[in-house]
């Protein structure tokens, strides 16, 4: 599928993603491969919206009629006039697929729904943008996804190159689902499971707010995006939305997919061990495995610089969790970060359990399976632990 779009008079090159982060447009075309041409018009419209939303301020005109429900959800969530209106709504299907990246979080989500098919998004080069990011090995990740033995739909796309700054990536986090949406009719999808965990969904993690966010615009079932996906009959499901990255790490490394887990985007034969992401994940893995930190990086290395400065850090709850658990951490590059916290195992033990409302917001059809899995493999938070979540950053 080829997508091209134009800006309205009030739109500008610099827009805003749903987390309020300013993003710059690079070009106004992209394509998505591996998807059928006959999807429901609402699916086309939503797939396009995941890409153009940051730059749309007042109105959007699609090349085909959409359902009144989708137009309403766009209006309620963004104040955007969308049209033309005139299609029947798409009824929800019965299958839940996993938006599978291969990282620990999506592997943990996949473990919860052992029969769910995977949809993997694979970045390909954009014909109009010089690729200055060849170290991103999407081919390696695609190969690992194929080795999982699960039913797999591979989507190829250059849509990340529509974003110029801060760097190529999903214009909205939801753009990873663009291909899955176009496949929704083919796969009879009623829900799409993402690997977003407790930090992203409830603690305002990443480049978001850094405090408790029950009404998270991006990931709450009742948030703007949650209602929009529901309007096209593909509910957003966060199977691991109630557990921390320590739990997803443990579940992933204990799962049958442990040999295919890969959170590093650079390594070929294995994780590169020297990028910022590898360092952060090593902090979590060492804490989970209760062993000393094992990294070739020193305090002088570039990825370490972040940890020499004051908090807040992205994924700060996991930093506290790691600092409290890793033996000999005071003799590693995280020594400086220790000054800013007095985290203990007790004060971070809430991160070993599941926040119950996260399971409650999964649609009934898929809730029982998540509940059974959590009960058997993780366990729910106590009222005291729940309070830790609900006062986070406040």
């Amino acid at each position, binding site marked *: *599928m*080829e*997508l*091209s*779009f*134009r*800006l*309205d*008079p009030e*739109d500008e*090159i610099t827009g805003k993603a749903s987390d309020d982060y300013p993003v*710059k*447009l*690079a*070009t*106004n075309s992209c394509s998505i491969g591996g998807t059928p041409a006959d999807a429901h018009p609402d699916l*086309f*419209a939503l*797939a*396009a*919206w995941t890409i*153009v939303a940051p730059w749309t301020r007042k*109105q*959007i*005109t*699609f*090349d*085909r009629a959409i359902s009144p429900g989708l137009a309403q959800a766009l209006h309620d969530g963004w104040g955007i006039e969308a049209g033309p209106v005139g299609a029947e709504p798409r009824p929800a299907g019965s299958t839940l697929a996993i938006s599978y990246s291969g990282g620990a979080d999506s592997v943990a989500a996949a473990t919860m729904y052992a029969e769910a098919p995977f949809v993997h998004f694979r970045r390909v080069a954009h014909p*109009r*943008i*010089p690729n*200055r990011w060849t170290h991103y090995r999407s081919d390696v990740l695609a190969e690992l996804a194929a080795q999982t033995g699960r039913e797999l739909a591979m989507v190829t796309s250059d849509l990340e190159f529509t974003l*110029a700054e801060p760097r190529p990536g999903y214009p909205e986090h939801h753009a990873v689902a663009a291909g899955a949406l176009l496949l929704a009719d083919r796969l009879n999808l009623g829900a799409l499971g993402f690997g977003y965990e407790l930090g992203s969904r409830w603690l305002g993690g990443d480049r978001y707010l850094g405090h408790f966010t029950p009404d998270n615009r991006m990931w709450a079932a009742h948030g703007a995006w949650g209602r929009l996906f529901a309007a096209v009959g593909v509910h957003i499901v966060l199977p691991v939305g109630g557990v921390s990255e320590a739990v997803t790490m443990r579940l992933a490394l204990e799962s049958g997919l442990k040999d295919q887990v890969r959170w590093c985007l650079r390594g070929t034969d294995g994780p590169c061990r020297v990028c910022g992401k590898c360092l952060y994940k090593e902090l979590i893995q060492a804490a989970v495995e209760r062993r000393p930190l094992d990294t070739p990086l020193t305090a002088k290395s570039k990825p370490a610089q972040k940890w020499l400065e004051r908090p807040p850090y992205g994924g700060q709850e996991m930093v506290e969790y790691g600092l409290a658990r890793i033996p000999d951490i005071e003799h590693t590059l995280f020594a400086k970060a220790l000054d800013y916290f007095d985290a203990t195992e007790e004060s971070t033990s809430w991160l070993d359990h599941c926040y119950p409302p996260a399971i409650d917001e999964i649609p009934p059809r898929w809730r029982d399976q998540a509940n059974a899995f959590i009960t058997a493999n993780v366990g729910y938070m106590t009222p005291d632990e729940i309070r830790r979540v609900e006062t986070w950053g406040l």
Partner: protein
Amino acid sequence: MMRVLVPVRLRKAVRTWFDSRYISIADHRQDIRDALWEVRTLRREMATLQSEVERLRTARPQVADKAKIDDARRLAQETAKALDGVLQNEVLVWQAIDDLRSRHHAATAGAAAAPTAGAAEPAGTEGQ
């Protein structure tokens, strides 16, 4: 162990048969000489190759190459950055064209004094 008496003639025949299966001392000498010659030739070739490697190594003008590489790198980066600007400008040009077009539509519709809904063509998304 069992010893058996063997007739002299038979013993001799067996011995001759064994000897015929081995190389003579003279042949051995010649072989060793040949091998030695081979080793000397190889040694000469090695020396030639080594001096060739040395010559190539010193012949590479390192300083000039580095400047060239840096320059190519700078040009590539600047070109990519410039292209970013061109692509963004293209988006803005289309935006301006669409704006003019819709104003033109509005003007002609206004002249006809009967504006119809949907006559304006606000820009949006086109998928195919």
